[in-house]
């Protein structure tokens, strides 16, 4: 792999940066939160992002996409992460979009992917359950076989962008026991399915997440995504992709936090000098700089490892998520400390990053989870 942007990638990054700078200042996130906006993002901006082609990056030309890869995807999520743009990129494009692209029947793909790429439909994956921590096989939701399909019962929590989603891909146990890798099946459930209740949840990062309850929800076999009993594996695959995309977002966020802290150190005067002239703070800033630079390298590498089907791609992904989780938290903690009382006020933007860092850490497995996974993959 080459850890350098080619010309097209450089141009893409610049386009995304320009759009985000002009159309999605961090204040947009604040406004959505203050308004207690139920959707938590802007349909209009999401449509504009789709028009710019960002949503098409990961899809094959046959599905109406650009057939680019994760290397390009992380450029988009990094710039979104820099200003905490809350549009449903990871949920609709990476998680649900790729699950459909990889495992959806021709009919399902034709039904959904066009409008997903166009930004008209928003999909997501409902996989997380209360008490399951980071193990996607620990689920109590079941899908029982009936004469003409399946009946789903159970509850999913913190379903990203689940409120207002046009459909969601739901993981349910069709055989085996809690914790078994096999025996999980993915079902696409449209928003109007009888027996499905979607309740908006309010989280630390103010993004759209939902509590989704299934009470005797009927789905037909045609709505199965992937293979019966092998849905856990497909889910794992798209979560890996989504993890890389999220690492891109985290990289953008930590970059913002770091630069914000650095600017404050140059400008804030105490004891008649800028506080950035104090050596203890300098050394801490230099260490945070190292964290950010190392994070950039591992995000680029993880994206390329996926794109190149590198045999060790899971190692790269866990390296990226472990590092970005620790680094985003370290950088935002240091930034708040160095911004002092100002950093503690809601008026300052840094708090949004500190909160988002914690949510991102705990999405798709925290640092400890990925260190454990790294060790297991290495065989020790």
């Amino acid at each position, binding site marked *: 792999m080459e850890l350098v942007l080619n010309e097209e990638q450089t141009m893409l990054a610049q386009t995304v940066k320009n759009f985000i700078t002009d159309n999605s200042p961090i204040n947009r996130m604040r406004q959505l939160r203050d308004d207690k906006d139920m959707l938590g993002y802007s349909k209009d901006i999401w449509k504009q992002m789709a028009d710019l082609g960002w949503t098409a990056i990961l899809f094959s030309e046959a599905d109406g996409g650009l057939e680019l890869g994760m290397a390009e995807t992380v450029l988009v999520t990094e710039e979104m992460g820099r200003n905490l743009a809350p549009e449903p990129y990871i949920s609709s494009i990476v998680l649900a979009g790729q699950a459909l692209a990889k495992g959806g029947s021709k009919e399902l793909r034709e039904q959904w992917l066009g409008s997903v790429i166009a930004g008209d439909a928003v999909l997501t994956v409902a996989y997380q359950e209360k008490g399951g921590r980071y193990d996607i096989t620990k689920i109590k939701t079941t899908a029982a076989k009936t004469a003409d399909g399946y009946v789903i019962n159970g509850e999913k929590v913190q379903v990203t962008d689940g409120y207002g989603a046009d459909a969601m891909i739901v993981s349910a146990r069709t055989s085996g026991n809690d914790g078994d890798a096999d025996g999980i099946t993915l079902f696409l459930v449209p928003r109007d399915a009888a027996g499905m209740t979607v309740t908006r949840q309010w989280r630390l990062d103010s993004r759209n997440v939902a509590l989704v309850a299934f009470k005797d929800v009927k789905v037909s076999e045609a709505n199965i995504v992937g293979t019966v009993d092998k849905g856990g594996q497909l889910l794992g695959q798209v979560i890996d992709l989504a993890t890389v995309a999220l690492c891109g977002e985290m990289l953008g966020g930590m970059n913002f936090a770091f630069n914000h802290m650095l600017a404050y150190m140059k400008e804030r005067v105490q004891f008649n000098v800028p506080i950035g002239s104090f050596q203890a703070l300098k050394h801490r800033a230099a260490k945070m700089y190292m964290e950010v630079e190392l994070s950039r390298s591992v995000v680029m590498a993880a994206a390329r490892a996926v794109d190149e089907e590198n045999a060790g791609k899971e190692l790269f992904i866990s390296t990226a998520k472990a590092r970005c989780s620790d680094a985003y938290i370290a950088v935002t903690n240091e930034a708040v*400390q160095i911004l002092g009382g100002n950093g503690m006020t*809601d008026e300052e933007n840094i*708090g949004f990053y500190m*909160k988002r860092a914690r949510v991102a850490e*705990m999405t798709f497995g925290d640092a400890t989870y990925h260190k454990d996974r790294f060790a297991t993959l290495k065989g020790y």
Partner: protein
Amino acid sequence: MADLEEFRASVRSWLEANAPKSLRGKMRDPAAAFWGGKKTKLPYPDSKPWLDMMAERGWTIPFWPKEYGGGGLSKEETKVLNEELARLELPPPLTGFGITMIGPTILQYGTEEQKKLYIPQIIKGEIRWCQGYSEPNAGSDLANIQTKAVVDGDDYIVNGQKIWTSFGDLSDWIFMLVRTNWEVKKQAGITFLLADMESKGVEVRPIKLISGASPFCEVFFEDVRVPRHQILNRENGGWEVARALLGHERTMIANTFGGRQSSTETKENPMEAAAKKYIGLQDGKIADDAIRQRMAQNQIDEQSFLLTVQRNSDNIKAGHRPGPETSIFKVYGTELNQRRQELMLSIFGPECLGWEGDGFEKNELDLPKVWLRSRGNTLEGGSSEIQLNIIAKQVLGLPD
């Protein structure tokens, strides 16, 4: 000793006869803390009679001198009183900055008139105090305060702005630093003033924090008249007072955030309970060993810290001077609390990410706010950086 036992008997019978039954058992109930003053909500209907009956005997601060309304008790008698209060699990009748900060400072620096005036009001809980130290450009560099006080007859005219004033909106009086001299070294031109928050020209605005709460305020002063007899110590002698008071404050913050339950107690603490609930046991051990090691580290740190606090207090009890280890309480205690809250987040996992509403339990919704609040511990009352500077200079004798 006979006298002490007599004293204990009289305390016991008085408490049993008079202490409100409704408050018994509420010793450790944080909601039972009563901050006094005119704007504070009464925690329980009986909180006011409880305060009044204790204040009448001077027992809100039992060891303060009797002549100013204190209990005038000896150390031993105070201990007995506390034991008897604990026996009925009664909450302290009063808490607040009057007791922990400005009271001791007035006793140390106040004139006879000031002691006679303020100390009884503090003891009776009639005024709640707030602290006017920090300003937008005087945080770590506290001596840089710019709020000015100009003499006009018997008054000062005060203009300027304070920030990070805890509970400024619920307080009756403020103790504050003002600049009275611009011609000298920063520290030498500061005066310590006591002011009524009801004075004309005082405006209070709560600051919303990242935790969503607003425990701090900005306080604006526009041509506020403060009588000159309300200075503590001499004019331009405020820095010395401020430093003495900061010592009280740091001890208080460290005590608050250092945690109280010793980790060697066999009783299960909230962290262990959470780990068992959110992670579970495997072969009798927390199933996630990385978390388990962090828990042990955190409890070992906490125990080390508490033992150091105890060592300091045992030294003082034994008649030795407080050891230099006192200086580490603020910085270690607050950083320990931050590590603890971060560990709690890791233990709860994704269930701690809620802010309000459906799908989260109450303790799950509380935790992130406690965590966010803890980030301020290393800033307020002198940041960790300032504390480390102080240790390096004053304890270790390292050069500037």
